[in-house]
């Protein structure tokens, strides 16, 4: 499984001030529950899932998602955000095996 932790983040192209807009993201991650068995070997596949996803805007916390193995493989999350000023949206996320990633993008408000 290559490229675990790769994320795609989408925001609308045009955002006007005061608008509430949607932020969507998809992270490449296996999200193993630890309950599934490998069909070939019969052994349990160790749990491997995202535990925490943090959305920060200009360093201020917007949303924190505490996730567990109940979230689907290659998780999709969508939140709403209110546009007050232009800035950088940073998303930090980590999994139960110590993997840590960060993704930033510029959000400009017209």
């Amino acid at each position, binding site marked *: 499984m290559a490229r675990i932790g790769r994320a795609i983040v989408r925001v609308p192209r045009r955002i006007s001030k005061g608008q*509430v807009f949607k932020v969507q993201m998809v992270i490449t991650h296996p999200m193993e529950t630890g*309950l599934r068995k490998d069909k070939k070997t019969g052994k349990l596949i160790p749990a491997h899932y995202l535990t925490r996803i943090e959305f920060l805007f200009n360093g201020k916390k917007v949303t924190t998602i505490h996730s567990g193995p109940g*979230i689907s*493989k290659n*998780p999709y*999350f*969508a939140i*709403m*955000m209110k546009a007050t000023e232009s800035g950088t949206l940073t998303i930090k996320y980590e999994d139960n095996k110590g993997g840590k990633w960060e993704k930033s993008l510029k959000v400009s408000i017209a």
Partner: protein
Amino acid sequence: MFTRRDLFKLAGVGAAALLMAPGSVKESFGVKKISIDDALKQHLGVTLKDLKQSNLITVKAPTIAESGANVPVQVKANIPVEQVEAIYIFADNNFNPWVTKVELSPMNGEVFFATRIKLAKTSPVRAVIKMKDGSLLMAFKEVKVTVGGCG
């Protein structure tokens, strides 16, 4: 363990029949299933009957999910975001019913969260909203699953 055939039958009998047998503890792979009450107690300190149902919250999910591995769920609430602390999602019949906790802030603008979750089998999907004053509001949607996703 259910066979696939049983599962189809159950889906046919419908939600009511499933709700008749709550709290049935099942062992699988040596892992004990956590009941919805235990999960609620662990995360919120309440049991199911303490939760008030609210029509301010909408849970959008398919009525029938073809695959339990990938069930889109959308939670929306008609409550000012300033009063909300967090959204919780629970799926009653999962091995661990707790799915996610989403902490919101006034910067969200409105109470909204969407994701895709796994369902082991047919189960109500519950959204619980924790308010800043400590009160809890709940709404749920019954989702029928034809193929489980936590197996």
